[in-house]
């Protein structure tokens, strides 16, 4: 890497850089050697940065018009929608932006699961990512409470009541969280404060996430360690910047579709009714991105164990680097893992579906089977697979399978003859 021998060309640049090496950092980010085979699944890091910035900017502007008070919050949101110039646009971007953020983060996480990006030496990157994901869920939940509609109020009641499952101190913790004997004005003001704070915590963690990434460098679809810089790498700028930029544009088209053509499809109609502590809506559902965990919560008939199962489902991800015993990173060379991976994807989608349905009859049965399988995947299948699976031979470099020595020799020869 050229980090250490970099020197700015201009005298002023040299003077500045000797005192604060920002230009060295900029140069590191520009020249940064990146695997040349990164596919479009690798563009979601950049997309997620865009999502975070969008949420912060639209959130700041909304905060200029929003009033965090139980008597005025609902009205002030309607005021934003009807009276504030472009208020509807900013709020729809912010509300749908949360969904887009989660869409991107789920793709990002499942990319990591497929290509084994969480494995040594990238465990810290992965754990930082899980912390960011937890903070995202906290921010999204508290943000959903702020409009003070029926779903806001009852969602807040149900989620804060999860803590009452803790033996002995549970009730005390819930009262402390509420600042009263029910979800009320003190709850709203503190949720607003924390909702404002968390994105900046996430921003700080994103810096650490990228810092930790730049120590070993990017994983890649082949999942092998590569020399940097070498014929297996390209500089981050312009190659990856352009690829990320193109993917971001495609993503923004999807984003814009939701904002302009179906801004309320991901929300819930009940949230356009002002919060009423006397009436619970007939069917309480969280936002779509929390549904799989909600399904896990409801599939356990015991209150405390249900909460424990839900939290474990998230926290189990943090120890994934040690549960997966396989030395091979990429699922491309793991024929069995590849199949289990897709079963897991289906399992999580099924959990999401039953999470939106009433917890009874067949739905409950499906939720229970899917919950059991979720834990089975991480606690049994992954550890055992590392020892039992017969993996395919891994190429020595990214270039090797292209120029010969590929697994599929016939294809490699065909390619070679074409080049000749």
């Amino acid at each position, binding site marked *: 890497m050229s980090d250490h021998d970099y020197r700015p060309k201009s005298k002023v640049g040299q003077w500045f850089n000797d005192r604060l090496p920002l230009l060295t950092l900029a140069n590191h980010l520009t020249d940064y050697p990146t695997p040349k085979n990164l596919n479009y699944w690798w563009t979601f890091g950049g997309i997620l940065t865009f999502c975070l910035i969008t949420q912060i900017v639209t959130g700041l502007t909304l905060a200029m018009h929003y009033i965090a008070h139980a008597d005025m919050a609902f009205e002030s949101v309607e005021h934003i929608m009807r009276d504030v110039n472009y208020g509807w646009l900013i709020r729809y971007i912010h509300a749908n932006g949360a969904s887009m953020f989660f869409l991107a983060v789920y793709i990002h996480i499942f990319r990591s699961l497929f290509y084994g990006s969480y494995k040594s030496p990238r465990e810290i990157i992965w754990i930082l990512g899980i912390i960011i994901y937890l903070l995202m869920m906290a921010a999204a939940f508290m943000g959903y409470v702020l409009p003070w509609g029926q779903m806001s109020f009852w969602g807040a009641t149900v989620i804060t009541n999860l803590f009452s499952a803790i033996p002995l101190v549970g009730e005390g913790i819930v009262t402390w969280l509420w600042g009263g*004997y029910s979800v009320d004005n*003190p709850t709203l003001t503190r949720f607003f404060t924390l909702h404002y704070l968390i994105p900046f915590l996430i921003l700080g963690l994103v810096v650490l996430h990228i810092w930790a990434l730049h120590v070993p460098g990017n994983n890649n679809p082949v999942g092998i360690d590569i020399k940097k810089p070498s014929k297996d790498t390209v500089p981050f700028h312009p190659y990856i910047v352009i690829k990320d930029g193109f993917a971001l544009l495609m993503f923004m088209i999807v984003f814009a579709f939701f904002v302009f053509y179906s801004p309320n499809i991901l929300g819930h109609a009940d949230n356009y009714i002002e919060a009423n*502590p006397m009436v*619970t809506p007939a069917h309480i559902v969280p936002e779509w991105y929390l549904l799989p965990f909600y399904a896990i919560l409801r599939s356990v008939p015991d*209150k405390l164990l249900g909460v424990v199962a839900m939290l474990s489902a998230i926290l189990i991800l943090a120890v994934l680097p040690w549960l997966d015993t396989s030395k091979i990173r990429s699922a491309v060379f793991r024929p069995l893992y590849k199949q289990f991976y897709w079963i897991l994807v289906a399992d999580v989608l099924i959990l999401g579906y039953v999470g939106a349905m009433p917890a009874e009859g067949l739905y409950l049965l499906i939720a229970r089977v899917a919950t059991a399988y979720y834990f089975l995947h991480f606690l049994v299948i992954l550890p055992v697979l590392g020892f039992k699976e017969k993996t395919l031979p891994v190429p020595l470099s990214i270039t090797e399978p292209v120029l010969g020595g590929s697994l599929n020799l016939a294809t490699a020869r065909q390619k070679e003859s074409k080049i000749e």
Partner: protein
Amino acid sequence: MSEKKTKRRDFLFTATTAVGAVGAAAVVWPMIDQMNPDASVKALASTEVDVSALTPGNTLTVLWRGKPVFIRRRTQEEIDEARSVKMEDLIHPEKDEDRAKNPEWLVMLGVCTHLGCVPLNDKGDYNGWFCPCHGSHYDTSGRIRKGPAPWNMEVPKYEFVNANTIKIG
């Protein structure tokens, strides 16, 4: 390893750390406790309700400390049903006699003990209440009979100020 003798400096380190920890805790506690219910919230501790218009078989829902309170004037049938239940059939065994001192009147927090939703009147498998959120069934005494809720609906402190007025809290 050679025997380590406690020196003056070790004592100073320990003492300084201990005083520092106590000081830090003293600063942190106000930051935590400020989130607990404040004086104005606690001041709304009791409320008086006029129940003269309530006829048997009906429920009045009032707000107390931000939570709904069910005041049910029960019919003889409901009382008989609640009092004939065997203790061993209950998830959270409580006698109806203890929950409703005056059998005609059942006063309790209308809050499901699972995750805090408001159960619906005259619904469910036990002719009492049914919580729509996660499917808990309560009987005519507000006791949990089926579903994920762990306890019976809570009976708050209340008293009849006169024949027509109940004071809750």
